[in-house]
C-alpha cells in the first residue's frame, strides 16, 4: 500500500476520550444522512405540501385529539400515581393493583364510542378482574416485583 494512504488510514484512539470516538462518527453519519434526506426527500415533500398536493404528517392530518391526548395523559398519570400509591404500601404491589383498576376503567370508557349500560358494566368487571388476576399471578404466585 502507498505510504501516504497508510498514514491517512492510520488512527490512534486516546483511551481517556475513547467513549466519544464512535459517537462522533455516528454524529457525522447522522448529520450527513440527514442533509441528504433533507435535500432528496424533505424539501420535495414540503414543496408538494405547499402546492397542496400532500399534507404534513401529524399537523396536517385530522386525528382524534381527545382520544390521542387523553391516552397520553392517562398513561402519564397512571405511571406517576402507581409509584406514589406504591410507596404508601411498599412491597405489596397494591400501587399497581388499585391504580390499574382505575386506569383500565377510565381508558375503556374513553375508547367506547357509544356507552350502553351493558358495555360500561363489562368494562367495570374487566377493570376489577384483570388487574386482580395479573396481580395475583405475578406478585403472589411468581413473586415478581410490582409497584
Amino acid at each position, binding site marked *: 500500500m502507498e505510504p501516504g494512504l497508510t498514514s491517512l488510514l*492510520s*488512527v490512534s484512539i486516546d483511551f481517556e476520550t475513547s467513549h466519544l470516538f464512535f459517537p462522533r462518527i455516528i454524529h457525522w453519519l447522522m448529520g450527513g444522512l440527514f442533509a441528504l434526506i433533507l435535500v432528496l426527500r424533505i424539501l420535495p415533500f414540503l414543496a408538494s405540501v405547499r402546492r397542496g398536493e400532500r399534507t404534513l404528517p401529524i399537523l396536517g392530518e385530522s386525528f382524534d385529539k381527545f382520544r390521542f391526548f387523553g*391516552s397520553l395523559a392517562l398513561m402519564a398519570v397512571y*405511571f406517576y400515581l402507581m409509584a406514589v400509591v406504591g410507596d404508601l404500601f411498599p412491597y405489596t404491589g397494591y400501587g399497581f393493583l388499585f391504580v390499574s383498576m382505575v386506569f383500565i376503567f377510565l*381508558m375503556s370508557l374513553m375508547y367506547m364510542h357509544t356507552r350502553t349500560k351493558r358495555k360500561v358494566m363489562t368494562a367495570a368487571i374487566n377493570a376489577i378482574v384483570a388487574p386482580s388476576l395479573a396481580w395475583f399471578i405475578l406478585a403472589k404466585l*411468581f413473586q415478581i*416485583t*410490582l409497584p
Partner: protein
Amino acid sequence: MLDILSLLDITFFLLAALGALVGIIFGAIPGMTATMAVAVCLPLTYALGLHHGLALLLGLYVGGISGGMVPAVLLNIPGTPSSITTTFDGYPMAQKGEGERALRVCVVASVVGGLISAIVLFLFAPILAEFSIKFSYVEKFLIILLALTVIASMSSNMLVGIFSGVLGIWLSLIGTYSISDGGNGKTRLMFDFLEPYLFEGFSLLPVLIGIFGIATILLEAEKGVKSGLSGKTINIGKGGGFSFSLFKGRATNLVRSSFIGTFVGMLPGVGGSAASVLAYTQEKNLSRDSSEMGKGAPQGLIASESANNALTGGALIPLLSLGIPGDSTTAVLIGAFTLQGIQVGPLFIPENADTWYVMMTALVFANIVMFFLMFYAIKHIAKVVLVPKYILYPLIVMMCVVGAYAINYGIMFDVWTLLIFGVLGYLIQKVGLEVAPLIIGFILGSQAEVYFVKSLESFGTFAIFFTKSPIAMVLWGLIAASVAFSVVMGLKSRARRRGEES
C-alpha cells in the same frame, strides 16, 4: 439425550400450547401482532426459567404469525402485516361461503411452512454458528454492518432506512462506554442530571415494549379506536368442503413458498409482508393456472400462508447463530435471552446444546398445536376477531407496565422509558422513518461500537476492515451487493412509475 428428555416435562408442553393459543388470539385481532404478543407476555417468563419461558414465547411467535389469517380471510383485514396476501384469495372465498374451507387450507399451508423452516433452522444454524465462531472483532463488526445494510436496502427508501438504523445505534450509545466491554466507563450523549437514570442507557425491553406496545396503542388512539368492523359480519360458511385433495399438484408451490419464507426470514429486519408478497408473486408468475388467483383460489392462500409461517424458523437462524435478530419478534426474543443471562451468538448452540434442542422441540410442538387448534377449533377462534378494543387496549398497557417495571426488579424509570419510546415510536412512524432498522440498530449498536473501537485500538488503521481476512472481503462484497440491489430496485420502480405517468 436423556438430559434433554428430562427437561421436557408436562409444563413445558402445556406452556408451548398455551403460547400458541394466546398467540393465535393476538394474531387474529387486527392491530395486534406476534411481536406485541411476545412483548406483552414477557413478564410471565420472568419467573419461569429459561426452557419453560422459551416454550411459551416460541408458542406465542408461531401462534401470532398464524393467527393473522383469520381476519384476513373473514374480514379482508390482515391481522398481521404478513397475512396481507392471504386477503387476496381468502376474502373472496369467504364471500362465497367458503370461509372455513379457506381457513383450513391456510392452516395446512402454515404448518407445512412452519415445519419446513424448522428443519432448515435445525440443519443450517449450527453450521453458520460454527463458521462464525472464528470471527474476530473486525468480521463481527462487518456482519453488523451487513445486517444493517440489508435491512436498509429492503426498506421502502434506502436512505431513510439507513438513517433509521443509525438513529437506533445513536440511541443505544446513550449511557456509559462500559468498562466490562473494555471501555473507560465514562458517560456520553446525555445531560449530567440524567446520570442516575441513564448510567447504563435505556434498557432494551422497555424500549421494545414501548415501541411495539404503547406506540401501537397511540396510533390506534389517534384514529379514534374505531372497531372498523361496523356492518361487517363474520361469514365462516358451512362446515366441510375441505379435503386434502385441494393440495393435489400444489406441492411445488408449498415447498417453494416455504423456502422463500425461510430465506426472507433469515434476512435481518425484513418483515413478514415481504415473504408472503414474494411467494405470492412467484406463484402467480410460475404457475400454469394462475388466472383464478385474486378471485378465491386456494393456491394463493397456500403461497401466502406457507411463506409467512416459514418466517419463524428463518428469522431464528441469524438470531441463534450470529446474535442478529431476523425480524422484530426475534428482536424481542433477544431480550428474553438477555433476561436469563444467556448471550445469543456463535457460541450459543455449542455451549447450550440442551437449550437448542429444547427450542427446536418447542418450535415443532408449537406448530403442531397450532395446526390442531386452528384446524378443529377455527369456528370458535374466529369469534375473537370481534372482541372490542376498549376492553383489550387498557389490558395491554397494563401488561406493558408490568413487563417494563419488573425487568430490572422494580425501576420506575423503566416504566417512563416505556412512555418515552411509545411516543418516539409513534412519531417515528408518523414522519415516515422505519421501525425495524431502528430496533436492530438499537440492539446491535453498542456491540458495533466495541467491535469497531477495539479493532482500531489493536490494529491502529482503518485499512484493517478491508484487509483482515478473505471473509472480511466477502462481507464487503455482500454489503456492496445489497446496496447495488437496492439502488437497482429503486431505479426500476422509478422507471415504472415514469412509464405509468406518461
